[in-house]
């Protein structure tokens, strides 16, 4: 099983070494640098450190990580079905399981490096004075966000392969970008909520005391380790669900005329 996983992982990585994919890699790395540079050189006043931390968080652990994993893992099943290559994988011992997890691992290891590289250039460019601390905070958040988002999108891709991209974009917009900012219990279901809570703690960002009660619903009051544990736990739980769904699913290699 481990050997099979390694085979899928290496095969997917080898297949990703194309000009188009490398361009995507550069885009993921370059976009935060471009935006931070744009803000830095078009703003005359020094921006507060907290604002920079917010920008860097939005660009790295939030947007680039979401975008990278969405594009890699959401179509993991649908692309094989559309190409009609799924059947070759499905008739191998543990084929569907290893392909799913192997693709997941390839996606996570592919997305983390460019986002961290981008961050490494963007943080000094921001010139906050405590760059190392911000970099270390963002790097840890990226390493937690990437596996979690990849697992979420992979699960979406296995539940409804033929509408996976639409569903994944809808999930991102509705849950991660809207509901996560609603001060209610429902925002605790999002990855964003945990990441934001950790950002506040690890980047040592102050919570306005007068609005403490309201802010708590947005950043939570649990200890950091709980958030880390939940973020780390999302991946295995959702992967197990995705594997179970894929094992129950029926994908026919028969032509449409045969169905």
């Amino acid at each position, binding site marked *: 099983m481990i*050997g*099979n996983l390694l085979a899928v992982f290496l095969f997917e990585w080898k297949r990703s070494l194309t000009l188009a994919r490398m361009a995507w890699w550069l885009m993921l790395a370059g976009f935060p640098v471009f935006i931070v540079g744009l803000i830095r050189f078009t703003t005359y006043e020094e921006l507060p450190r907290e604002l920079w931390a917010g920008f860097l968080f939005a660009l790295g652990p939030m947007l680039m990580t979401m975008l990278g994993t969405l594009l890699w893992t959401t179509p993991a099943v649908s692309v094989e079905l559309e190409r009609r290559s799924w059947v*070759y994988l*499905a008739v191998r011992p543990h084929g569907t399981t290893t392909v799913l997890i192997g693709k997941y691992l390839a996606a996570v290891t592919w997305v983390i490096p460019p986002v961290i590289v981008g961050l490494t250039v963007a943080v000094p460019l921001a010139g906050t004075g405590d760059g190392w601390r911000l970099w270390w905070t963002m790097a840890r958040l990226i390493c937690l966000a990437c596996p979690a988002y990849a697992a979420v999108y992979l699960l979406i891709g296995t539940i409804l392969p033929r509408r996976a991209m639409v569903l994944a974009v809808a999930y991102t917009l509705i849950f991660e970008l809207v509901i996560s900012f609603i001060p209610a219990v429902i925002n605790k279901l999002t990855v964003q909520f945990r990441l934001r809570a950790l950002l506040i703690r690890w980047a040592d960002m102050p919570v306005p005391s007068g609005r403490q009660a309201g802010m708590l619903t947005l950043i939570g009051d649990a200890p950091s380790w709980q958030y880390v544990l939940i973020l780390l736990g999302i991946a295995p739980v959702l992967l197990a669900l995705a594997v179970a769904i894929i094992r129950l699913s029926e994908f026919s*290699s*028969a032509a449409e005329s*045969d169905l």
Partner: protein
Amino acid sequence: MIELKSVTKLYGRVIGVNDFTLTLESGAYGLVGPNGAGKSTLLNLITGQLRPTLGTVRVFGEDPRNNAALFQRLGYCPGGEGLYSNVSGYDWVKYLQRLQGMTDLEAERVTEESLELVGMTESMHRPIASYSRGMRQRTKLAQAIAHDPDLLILDEPFSGLDPVGRYELTMVLKDLILIGKSVLFASHVLHEIESLTQSFLLICGGRLLASGTAEDVHRLMVGVPNEVRLKCSRPHELAALLIREQAADAVRITSDGLTVTTQNPGRLYEALPDWLASTGLTISEMHSADESLQALFNSLMKMHRGEL
């Protein structure tokens, strides 16, 4: 080897396979049926990709759904293409052998051997995008046989191959059958299957219509009326002649000729030249509709429904 008990597969309201019961011992079998007959659905059930709505499927005594142990003994060459365009045939076949659980070295060895067997050694390091249809078919067959499976399931494996390619792959498959491998070979072209095996399974409308050797099938067809279409100058005279000579059970005159229904087409074909010579009638075209496989299936379907 393969056992299906009252298997029905429904896709919503559409029936893919209908109350299919079949037991196959080890050997080579041809699954024949027109397009849309349910061949691919049947193969999908046997390879465990689909779950039967009703009934049970057993391959080597086991349920094929998600059965890792069984997949070690199974080689499958599906009908569709489904190859990655930007990888080489070698990398693709090796990848699939790694998924069989082989080490890197083992996978390399069997990949080279199988690609050599199907005549792809020279082109195996080229990207699949540059392959012709025939080369893709060969590569597909290579991935199915590389891990030395006991049962090989092939869905239209000769599709897109030139005559030389067909011959070469037929030889490869014959060799596999000779060393005791079992083969289930689906096609809608009868002679493709006849070149490999004399054991047929005839399927149409998701039902098993007949099984046995080619002779069994021909025997089954004795007494089934054949239809012959003739394009001629004076159809009424020709119709009268055929009735008079008792060479036709029924005759239908059309705008440009006549359609003859007969239970004894051999007599008609033998005697027709003499009759034409003696009467001066001319025939410009003659078609036997029953030469097509579809006609055979139509007749079998009618027999199945008790209409013949």
